[in-house]
């Protein structure tokens, strides 16, 4: 139904554009000039989650990627790193619900990777409540919970299901003109993942872990771009300001990059990207990042947010 409305809007917009463009006499050449080309551009950049061409789309790493890294470097499951608030109904504003859905989603992935399926199931129920508050199609969660219950011992299947659920809810939000909610969920997930990683560096001196923290310099740039795009009415000014403040610290991280010709293996549909990058993150900067992300994260999970 939503798509029909949007389709109608586009059709009407373009037809009105056509009428305006034909005002000089309707010569077919009019439709081929630069002006008519401009009228053919999508007029509603947010319609159905479609981004206006000329803007950029930003990718953020999945919290699951970070959780896998934490497991790989030998980090132990630490339950008290996760959001301890069990009553999701305390998050009453749309922004708080969206950001905490991202946070609980990251906690859910973290629990699953460590085989804490019962804890993960509880978190899934919390995500369902927040998702309902945000208007995400409840069937996405209910069907997931049924499938989850039937696969509690199969970690790999559960991970696939959760990745699918995240993908479906993101698709649903974008179809329903809720780009801002989608962005805030990603924001919450990114903050929680960085919170996990930085806190683990306090106990575990692992170069991969430290690099991953420093590499967030790049992701942070994408995240700021994403939030700025979703901030057309200034409703996310606080979020952007916090992230820019974090970026000031990340700017002290040294990132070196060297282009190397890639190798493509067409028979395997694979390209090996051989370019080299290194990250240099000092103890002082790591501490600054840890402190700042902890502050941001604790503000997000506060029920008064």
């Amino acid at each position, binding site marked *: 139904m939503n798509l029909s409305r949007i389709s109608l809007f586009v059709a009407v917009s373009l037809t009105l554009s056509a009428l305006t463009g034909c005002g000089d006499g309707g010569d077919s050449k009019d439709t081929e000039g630069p002006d008519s080309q401009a009228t053919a551009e999508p007029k509603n950049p947010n319609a159905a989650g479609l981004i206006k061409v000329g803007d950029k789309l930003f990718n953020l790493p999945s919290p699951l990627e970070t959780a896998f890294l934490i497991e790989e470097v030998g980090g132990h499951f630490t339950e008290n790193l996760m959001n301890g608030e069990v009553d999701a109904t305390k998050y009453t504003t749309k922004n708080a619900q969206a950001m905490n859905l991202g946070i609980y989603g990251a906690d859910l992935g973290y629990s699953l990777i460590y085989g804490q399926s019962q804890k993960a199931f509880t978190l899934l129920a919390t995500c369902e409540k927040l998702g309902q508050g945000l208007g995400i199609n409840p069937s996405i969660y209910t069907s997931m919970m049924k499938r989850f219950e039937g696969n509690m011992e199969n970690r790999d299947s559960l991970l696939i299901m959760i990745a699918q659920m995240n993908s479906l809810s993101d698709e649903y939000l*974008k179809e329903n003109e809720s780009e801002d909610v989608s962005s805030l969920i990603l924001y919450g997930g990114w903050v929680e993942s960085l919170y996990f990683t930085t806190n683990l560096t306090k106990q575990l001196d692992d170069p991969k872990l430290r690099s991953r923290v420093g590499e967030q310099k790049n992701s942070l740039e994408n995240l700021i771009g994403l939030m700025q795009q979703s901030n057309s009415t200034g409703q996310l000014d606080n979020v952007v300001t916090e992230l820019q403040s974090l970026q000031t610290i990340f700017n002290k991280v040294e990132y070196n990059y060297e282009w190397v010709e890639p190798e493509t293996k067409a028979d395997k549909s694979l390209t090996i990207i051989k370019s080299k990058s290194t990250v240099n993150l000092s103890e002082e900067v790591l501490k600054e990042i840890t402190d700042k992300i902890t502050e941001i994260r604790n503000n997000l999970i506060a029920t008064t947010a």
Partner: protein
Amino acid sequence: MKGLFTLAIIALSASFSFAQCDITADVCQKHITDDFLSDGQHYRALLLTDQVAEFNATLYGGTTYRISACSGTQDGNLLFRVTDKDRNLIFRNVEHKNAPYWDFQLESTMDVIIEAELDPIAGNSGCAVMLIGFKR
């Protein structure tokens, strides 16, 4: 009058493209097979011929990613190329029969830019969908 008719066709075409997004997403999703986990994000752009959508991504070293890029109801309608931030070319699917997906194995973490545009043969407008998965 002829111009009005042309634009009405474009309007209908655009309208159809919006409706096609769901179908396109399904076409694209099937390439994110079970050995890859979706990053949980759906990237979409409504494109007309000659328009290019730009996707910015950070890919981590030591990981293999699959990028699936589609438009319309069948594979091969979307042209995509991957470059680094300095626009050094990494991959173009046009050199591989418009492959709808491709895997990228990273030795180091890097930022990439993915540009997507419609294959002119496939039509004048369409919903471009891109999905990213990473190997477990």
